[in-house]
């Protein structure tokens, strides 16, 4: 019967479920995992055209420096007084004169190459010296802390408080200018930079637990530094070194320019500019080209450093894949492109339209009869596909057994899909999620971390990161599609229409504003209240959510409150304008159990007081059981089961829900092994074909690998996305 169902849905032309399934499994090639680390670096480098060019330029400069003497012989220093001031860009006199010649008839191009050698012979040793000395010193100081750290930092302060160029001038003047003198002075002048960086990073590591472990094992401090500190600190230090290379090169050329750096007959780029300055009016090219050489080399080093920083920081790497950081309006893709996924979303929508009264196309008859209890009914062409969406939120059907049945859905999310853009293409993280919540009702979005529940909430609230993008679906707030609104209309609803409470209250409150100002902000923005009036309202709100001495505490900053109080503040801010829908994204996860209960009670009170619709996003089954009216269980970016909490928890219609419930310790299981779901949730980049849960499912059969189950009604107000949902319901 089930196979027939899928066959019918295919023949109905609404989608190619098997193809879709195959598509999902083939996105991540296994070969990707076997590339060596070095190849990976090369691949990362090749992705960035700027970094590639920079590397090529630096290699070119290095080659000039190494092979220069062989290439040009004494061309750079041989004077040719018969032929001074030759103009550039002419090959008549050989390649060496392509950039012209100076007043002594020496070819500029040849001198540039000779100068590359001199410049690098100063910059490279200087950077290496300060890198080695500074980083070892810094790691040592940071690792030990105490007076060693203090003395080292004071020394660094002294060196840094003295203008380095002036130091170099004085020292070079004392010891007569020479290349080795410059190396020495610049190395000393830059040691503090590495020292500070290495110290900061290793001091941070010092406080970590694994360092304590190493100490208890009696590992010597140098061994600890070599094994634990150095590998962590080194990437940062190398980035600093690349930037420092620019600084050293620039300082050397400044010194040479001022006449106390490289001395003739040696030649450096800075010295060439200085010489060119005398003849600026007659022959501009003498000064221009060496300057350009400095700019190009230093820019290359900067670009390379920026790339290295990006490449060594996994948290930043995703930015590579970002084409356009667009926030705001939804861009709907062409129907054909994502046809497979959309069609399955459409099917889900079709089912939910049946199960959820908000979308019922024929608002008549009792829920049980109306709902497509028989799978065949589900395959009937329904108008609720995203492409051909009808006028939003038609008159709702009464849903018997549902306590809020008489009111329409305040928020109805319909086949919402969200992709994250990565370098390897879009990764679907929310795949056709639908749910509805009425005023005065609490809906729990339940799922493990990474299942897409927070992403769903953020998409609805319009707060997705630039890398994430809504690619399909609707979120109707009292009939108005939030996802299709412009920025201004969206802002108008943010607060009075829809509000959100975040998980981590410390980072969700602006650390540099008083809580009073932050609580007053909604009134200032939406009701254009005066500062004083808004402040008074803020104090009232603080009193309402149970913050003692609200009047005086309004002038305090977030870090001066406890975790529970901060969460209260955040809730107060969210409910300030009596929103119709409140999204609470793991509102109690960071709190201890007693405070959790207080916060949940507060949310419950506010919900009934203000007749809000509350969407509670959580992974906590206990919280759901205690506080939610209905639950939508999410897995791998889709809703796998919905229904009233008591019924779903009493008799789950999806093996995943059942697995979740069985993994909760309970009295009747005492003495037996605690059940857990084997395996782990799929990587969003490689969700298995067919049913996303089949790898971990005790009931999986062949059918599950080829056909993706869609959310189908299994009872009154209940639905499950499982081929055997009905069997589970009837069992």
């Amino acid at each position: 019967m089930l196979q027939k169902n899928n066959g019918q849905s295919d023949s109905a032309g609404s989608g190619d479920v098997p193809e879709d399934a195959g598509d999902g499994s083939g996105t991540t090639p296994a070969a990707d995992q076997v590339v060596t680390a070095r190849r990976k670096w090369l691949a990362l480098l090749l992705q960035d055209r700027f970094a590639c060019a920079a590397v090529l330029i630096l290699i070119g400069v290095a080659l000039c420096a190494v092979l220069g003497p062989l290439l040009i012989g004494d061309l750079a220093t041989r004077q040719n007084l018969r032929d001074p001031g030759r103009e550039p860009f002419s090959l008549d006199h050989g390649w060496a004169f392509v950039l012209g010649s100076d007043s002594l008839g020496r070819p500029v191009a040849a001198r540039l190459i000779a100068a590359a050698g001199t410049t690098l012979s100063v910059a490279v040793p200087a950077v290496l010296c300060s890198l080695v000395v500074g980083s070892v010193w810094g790691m040592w100081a940071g690792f030990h802390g105490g007076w060693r750290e203090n003395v080292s930092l004071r020394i660094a302060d002294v060196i840094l408080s003295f203008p380095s160029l002036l130091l170099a001038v004085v020292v070079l003047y004392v010891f007569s200018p020479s290349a080795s003198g410059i190396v020495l002075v610049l190395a000393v002048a830059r040691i503090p930079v590495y020292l500070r960086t290495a110290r900061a990073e290793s001091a941070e590591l010092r406080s970590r637990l694994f360092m304590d472990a190493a100490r208890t094992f009696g590992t010597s401090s140098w061994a600890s530094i070599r094994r634990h500190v150095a590998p962590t600190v080194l990437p940062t230090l190398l980035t600093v070194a690349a930037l420092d290379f620019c600084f050293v090169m620039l300082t050397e050329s400044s010194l040479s320019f001022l006449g106390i750096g490289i001395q003739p007959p040696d030649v450096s780029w800075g010295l060439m500019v200085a010489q060119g300055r005398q003849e600026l009016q007659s022959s501009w090219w003498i000064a221009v080209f060496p300057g350009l050489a400095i700019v190009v080399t230093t820019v290359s080093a900067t670009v390379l450093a920026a790339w290295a920083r990006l490449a060594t920081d996994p948290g930043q790497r995703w930015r590579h894949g970002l084409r356009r950081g667009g926030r705001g309006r939804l861009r709907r893709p062409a129907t054909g492109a994502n046809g497979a996924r959309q069609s399955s979303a459409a099917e889900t929508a079709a089912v939910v339209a049946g199960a959820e009264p908000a979308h019922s196309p024929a608002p008549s008859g009792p829920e049980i009869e109306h709902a497509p209890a028989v799978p065949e009914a589900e395959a009937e062409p329904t108008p609720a596909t995203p492409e051909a969406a009808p006028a939003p939120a038609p008159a709702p059907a009464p849903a018997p057994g549902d306590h809020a049945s008489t009111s329409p859905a305040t928020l109805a999310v319909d086949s919402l899909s969200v992709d994250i853009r990565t370098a390897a293409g879009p990764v679907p993280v929310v795949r056709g999620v639908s749910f509805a919540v009425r005023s005065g009702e609490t809906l729990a979005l339940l799922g493990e971390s990474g299942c897409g529940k927070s992403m769903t909430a953020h998409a609805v609230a319009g707060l997705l990161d630039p890398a994430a993008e809504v690619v399909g679906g609707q979120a109707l707030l009292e009939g108005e599609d939030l996802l299709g609104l412009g920025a201004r209309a969206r802002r108008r609803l943010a607060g009075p229409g829809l509000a959100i409470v975040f998980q981590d209250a410390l980072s969700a409150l602006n650390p540099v504003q008083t809580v009073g100002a932050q609580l007053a902000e909604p009134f200032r923005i939406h009701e254009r209240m005066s500062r004083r009036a808004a402040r008074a309202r803020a104090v009232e709100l603080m009193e309402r959510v149970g913050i003692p001495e609200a009047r005086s505490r309004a002038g305090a900053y977030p870090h001066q409150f406890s975790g529970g109080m901060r969460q209260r503040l955040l809730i107060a801010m969210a409910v300030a304008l009596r929103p119709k829908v409140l999204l609470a994204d793991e509102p109690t996860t960071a709190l201890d159990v007693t405070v959790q209960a207080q916060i949940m009670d507060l949310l419950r009170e506010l919900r009934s007081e203000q007749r809000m619709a509350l969407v509670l996003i959580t992974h906590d089954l206990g919280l759901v059981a205690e506080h939610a009216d209905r639950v939508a269980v999410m897995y791998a970016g889709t809703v796998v089961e919905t229904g009233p909490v008591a019924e779903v928890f009493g008799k789950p219609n999806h093996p995943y829900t059942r697995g979740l419930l069985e993994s909760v310790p309970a009295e009747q299981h005492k003495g037996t092994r605690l059940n857990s779901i084997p395996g782990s949730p799929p990587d969003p980049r490689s969700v298995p074909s067919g049913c996303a849960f089949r790898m971990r499912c005790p009931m999986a059969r062949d059918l599950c690998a080829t056909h993706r189950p869609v959310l189908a009604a299994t009872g009154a107000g209940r639905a499950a996305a499982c081929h055997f949902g009905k069997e589970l319901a009837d069992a």
Partner: protein
Amino acid sequence: MFTMLRRRAVSSVIPLLVVVLGVFFLARLTGDPANLYLPLSATPEMRAEFSARNGFDQPLVNQFGDYLVQVAHLDFGESLRTAQSASGAVLRAFPATLQLAGWTMLLAIVGAVVIGSLAAYRPNSATDRIASFLSSTAASVPDFWFAIMGVLVFAVTLGWLPTSGTSGAAAWVLPVTTLLIRPFGVLVQVVRGAMVSALSAPYVKVARSKGANEVRVVFGHALRNAAAPALTVAGDLAVGLVNGAVVVETIFGWPGIGKLMIDSVLQRDFAVLQAAVLLTALVIFALNILVDICHAILDPRVRQRAAA
């Protein structure tokens, strides 16, 4: 706040002493001023007389002791070149540099905040890429070369601006631009980085969820949080302006402290060099304290730590 300032001032004393000490001895290592100020034909007696008159015949330690006593009485000695008081020469030169540096930092900070925020608003957008590339180029341009190119284009070729001097607004354009370019380039990148992380912070999402418009989000919420790292770097860059001032003032003949210092090194004018370095070091320490105060104003957590 005052506790913090006092602590800061106390901890500055030793570095200041080290700077004074270092300059004093390094300067004396540059050679005997008698070689420079007396004719080559000077007799040993004349040299001895010159040294005795300027106190160079004493052991170095005694000279340093005398110098410290003098400094304590705000007497910085006389210039060997002009026989005028060293403090006078330094104080005359100082305002020119201070004005130059002040305008430079003001323009650099304002420009960097605007451009850095624009770039950070949409990471990896065209604006961001252009701003990042231009700012990293700006940070890598050697100032002396930029100055010479400026002179070549705007003074020599186009004749719009004077090549040197301090008279009239036009004379300020090239020196300020030259001095500006590096700090500006660096600051744009710092502001951009700080703003990118501030704009992705949860409190920014919360502000948006309250219906705050983007101006309010960027300038009301994110910028103040991003200001701390930018402020630290701006302080370091302001210190580095002394380096730039040496180059720029030499090229444009700007009668500031950088030119004075270079001249006094080359002329072995110890008293002036010492006074100039001491004043510069004092200004740098004052600047660091100013940066600390700004940190405390911007961030209540710093304030609390400072009070504790």
